[in-house]
C-alpha cells in the first residue's frame, strides 16, 4: 500500500511538474582583465529527463569587456541567431536537462578592465514548439506564417489579442530596438511581416500600436529619416514610409526580404508575429511554467545593495519608492536623495546610492597577493569543528600590527571573511576560519601559488595588513506616491474585519495583556493589533482601532 502511494505521488508530481526550478550560485567577485573565471553553480532541477528544454543564459548590462563562455556544449543546439562557441553576453540553447546542466557547470566568465556588476541570468522552460524566445527582453514570439493564416494588419492586430501563452495575453509584435529587429529578422521565416506600427490616425504620424509601448510616437512625418523621434527605434527602407495612395498606414518588417521596414495598405495578406511578455528585464518575467534565476557577481570590488521586499499580495509595490539613508551622528539622512522605483516583484537596487566612505572600526584586515615564499600554511579541514586552522609567518606582520588584532583575511580568491585569533609565538600566528563548506582550491585562479604538502597547503602569499574600516550604518527608506493616496490605502488596509477580529481576540482572553486569545494565529497579528506600540495588546488598542474605523 505504501509503495502504491509513493508511486501515485511520484506520478502526480511528475504529471503536474512540481519542483522545477533553476538554482543560482552565491555571488562572487571576479578579478578584472582575467579570462576563464569560474561562474558555475546554476543548476536546473525537476524537469523531465527526456524533454527538450529551452535555456537562456544572459549577461545583463555587463561592464565593457565582460563575456561568458560555455566550455562544454555537448548535446546542445544553439537557438536561431546564436552559436555555441565563443565568448558571449547572451546565448539561448535547447537540450536535455542533463546536457544543459553539464554546460552550466562549465560556465566561465571573462572580465575586462572596466569594473562593475556582472549579472548572470539563467532561464529555462520546456521548449515550446513554434515559439521563439528572446533572451534580451525575456519575451516569446510566435510567427504566423502559414499561407492560410496570413491576413490583413487589422485582423492580425485583433487576432493577436485573442491569444494567450504561458499566462500572458498576446499582442501584435512591437519592434523597439535594433536587437529585437534583428531577432525578428533571424527567426521569422517569411518576408513582409506585419508589426505593430501605424499612422492610421494622422498620416505620417507613426505610433507603436500594441503592447506595453502602445501609443509611443515613433516619427512625425513620412520619409526614411524625416521626423524620427530621438531615442525611439525606426528602421525604414529608403524612401519609406511614403503613405502611398493615402492608404499605406501599416508597417511591415523584412520588406522584400531586406532588414528594413515599409508601409503597406490593409488589403495585403501578410504573415505576422505575436509577442508575449510586457517586461523589459528577463528577471521580471511572470510566465507560467517558466523558471528563472540570476546572480550578480562583480568585476572588481563593487559594493552592491539589492532588496527583495515582500508587501503581501494586496499591495501595489510599484506605488512605492526607496531612498538610501545613512545614520550619522545619531541622525538618519539620505545619501544621494535619489528615489528608486520598486518593481512589481518588490525589487529595488540601491547600489548607486550607497555611501562607500568607510569609518574606523575595530581590528585589522589582511589581504594577500601571490608571492615567492610560503608565508602561509593552511591545515586540512576539520569537519567535526567546521573550521580550518592557519598559520601566518610572523615576519609578514609589520611593526605596530599585532597578530591578535587581525579579525579578517582575504586569502587570494579562496576566502574573504572573518578569522578568529588563536595564539602566536616567536614564529607563527595561528587563526581559525570557521566555515561550513570546504575551500574550493580547484577553481581558484591562484592554484600556482598553492602547494599541497602532507596534511597542509603551503601558500606563496604576501600579506598586507591595514586597520579595519567599516561602512556606515545604512537604511532603506520607503515612500508612497503621495500622502493622500497613502491615507486612502491605509484606510483600505485597516477595515471593519480587522477591528472586529481584534475585539474578538481581546474578549477571548487577550484582555489581560499578553495572554493569547483564540483568534490570532500569528505573532504578527498581535504586533499589528498593538496599535499604541507598548508591547501589550489590550482594550486601549481596540479602542484606537475603533476610533480609526469610525473616524472619531
Amino acid at each position: 500500500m505504501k509503495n502504491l502511494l509513493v508511486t501515485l505521488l511520484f506520478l502526480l508530481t511528475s504529471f503536474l511538474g512540481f519542483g522545477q526550478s533553476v538554482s543560482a550560485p552565491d555571488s562572487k567577485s571576479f578579478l578584472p582583465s582575467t579570462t576563464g573565471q569560474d561562474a558555475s553553480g546554476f543548476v536546473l532541477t525537476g524537469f523531465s529527463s527526456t524533454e527538450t528544454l529551452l535555456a537562456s543564459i544572459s549577461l545583463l548590462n555587463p561592464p565593457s569587456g565582460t563575456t561568458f563562455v560555455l566550455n562544454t556544449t555537448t548535446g546542445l543546439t544553439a537557438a536561431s541567431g546564436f552559436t555555441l562557441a565563443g565568448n558571449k553576453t547572451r546565448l539561448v540553447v535547447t537540450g536535455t536537462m542533463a546536457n544543459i546542466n553539464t554546460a552550466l557547470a562549465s560556465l566561465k566568465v571573462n572580465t575586462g578592465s572596466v569594473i562593475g556588476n556582472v549579472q548572470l541570468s539563467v532561464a529555462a522552460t520546456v521548449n515550446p514548439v513554434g515559439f521563439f524566445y528572446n533572451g534580451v527582453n525575456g519575451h516569446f514570439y510566435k510567427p504566423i506564417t502559414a499561407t492560410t493564416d496570413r491576413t490583413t494588419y487589422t485582423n492580425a492586430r485583433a487576432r493577436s489579442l485573442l491569444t494567450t501563452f504561458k499566462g500572458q495575453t498576446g499582442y501584435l509584435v512591437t519592434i523597439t530596438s535594433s536587437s529585437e529587429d534583428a531577432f525578428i529578422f533571424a527567426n521569422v521565416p517569411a518576408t513582409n511581416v506585419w508589426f505593430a506600427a501605424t499612422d492610421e490616425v494622422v498620416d505620417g504620424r507613426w505610433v507603436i500600436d500594441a503592447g506595453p509601448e502602445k501609443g509611443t510616437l515613433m516619427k512625425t512625418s513620412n520619409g526614411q529619416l524625416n521626423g524620427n523621434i530621438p531615442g525611439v527605434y525606426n528602421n525604414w527602407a529608403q524612401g519609406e514610409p511614403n503613405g502611398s495612395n493615402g492608404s499605406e498606414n501599416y508597417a511591415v518588417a523584412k520588406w522584400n526580404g531586406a532588414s528594413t521596414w515599409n508601409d503597406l495598405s490593409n488589403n495585403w495578406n501578410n504573415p505576422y508575429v505575436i509577442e508575449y511578455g510586457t517586461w523589459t528585464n528577463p528577471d521580471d518575467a511572470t510566465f507560467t511554467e517558466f523558471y528563472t534565476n540570476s546572480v550578480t557577481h562583480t568585476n572588481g570590488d563593487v559594493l552592491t545593495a539589492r532588496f527583495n521586499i515582500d508587501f503581501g499580495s494586496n499591495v501595489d509595490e510599484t506605488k512605492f519608492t526607496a531612498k538610501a539613508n545613512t545614520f550619522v551622528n545619531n541622525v538618519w539622512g539620505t545619501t544621494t536623495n535619489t528615489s528608486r522605483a520598486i518593481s512589481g516583484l518588490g525589487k529595488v537596487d540601491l547600489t548607486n546610492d550607497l555611501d562607500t566612505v568607510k569609518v574606523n572600526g575595530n581590528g585589522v584586515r589582511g589581504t594577500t597577493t601571490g608571492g615567492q615564499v610560503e608565508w602561509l600554511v593552511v591545515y586540512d579541514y576539520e569537519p567535526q569543528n567546521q573550521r580550518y586552522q592557519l598559520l601566518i609567518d610572523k615576519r609578514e606582520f609589520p611593526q605596530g600590527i599585532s597578530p591578535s588584532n587581525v579579525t579578517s583575511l582575504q586569502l587570494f580568491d579562496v576566502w574573504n571573511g572573518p578569522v578568529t585569533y588563536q595564539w602566536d609565538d616567536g614564529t607563527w600566528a595561528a587563526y581559525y576560519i570557521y566555515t561550513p563548506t570546504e575551500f574550493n582550491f580547484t577553481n581558484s585562479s591562484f592554484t600556482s601559488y598553492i602547494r599541497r604538502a602532507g596534511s597542509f597547503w603551503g601558500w606563496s602569499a604576501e600579506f598586507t595588513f591595514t586597520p579595519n574600516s567599516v561602512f556606515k550604518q545604512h537604511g532603506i527608506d520607503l515612500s508612497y506616491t503621495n500622502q493622500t493616496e497613502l491615507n486612502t490605502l491605509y484606510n483600505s488596509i485597516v477595515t471593519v474585519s480587522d477591528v472586529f477580529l481584534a475585539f474578538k481576540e481581546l474578549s477571548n482572553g487577550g484582555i489581560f495583556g499578553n495572554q493569547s486569545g483564540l483568534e490570532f494565529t500569528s505573532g504578527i497579528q498581535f504586533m499589528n493589533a498593538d496599535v499604541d506600540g507598548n508591547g501589550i495588546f489590550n482594550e486601549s488598542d481596540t479602542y484606537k482601532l475603533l476610533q480609526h474605523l469610525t473616524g472619531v
Partner: protein
Amino acid sequence: MKLYGKTEYDAITKSNWNTKFNSTRSLFPFSLNTGTLNNTYNVSATWVGDVNLSHSAQQSVSSIASSSIRSMSLTTNVVSTDIQASILTELVNGKAYAYISLNPLQNELVGTQFQLNYDNSVLKFDGVEFKTKGSPTNFGTNKGTYVNVGSLITDGSNTLDNTTEYRIMFTPTKNITNVLGLISVGSTDAVNKDGKQLKVKVN
C-alpha cells in the same frame, strides 16, 4: 508601515512578538559588511492595524504548511463567504442620495464597511442615516473624496440582517440633472461572527 528582515519576521511568534513591536518605521536599517560585496536583503512589510494580515507579507513557515494542507483537502459542503449589497442613487428635490442596502445571505454578519467615492467638485457631503437593528456602532465619516460608512457589532452579540440600509446624503454645489457617475463604491469589507472576512458583491 513596518519593515523587518525576512528572517526576523518569519521568527515572530505569539510568545515573542512583544520583543519586536517597536518597529514602527518605513526605514529599514541594513549593514554593509566589510568583505561582502554583493549584499541582498530580503525584507517583509506589514502595517499597524492590519490585524487580519490582508495587506502584509505572509510568514514563510506557516504559509507553506497551511497551503500544502489545503491543497490536499476536499470540500464537500461549501458555505458562501459572500454577502450581497446594492447601491441606488437618486436626485430628489435638489438633494443627492445614495442608498446602500445589504443581504447577508446565510452569513452571520457583524461588520460592514464601504468606501463610497463621490465627486467633491460637484457634491458636498451632508451626512448618513442608518437603518440597523440592534445596537451596532455605526459610522459615516467624510474623507474628502469618499465617505467611510458601515456598522460594527464589536461583541458579536447580534448580527446585521437584510433590513440594514445606509442613506448617504449630499448637496450638489452645481446645477445637475442626475447623479450618474458622481457616486460609486470603492473598496468594501465585511466580517462574520467568527471573525472571517467576507466578500461584498455590489450589484
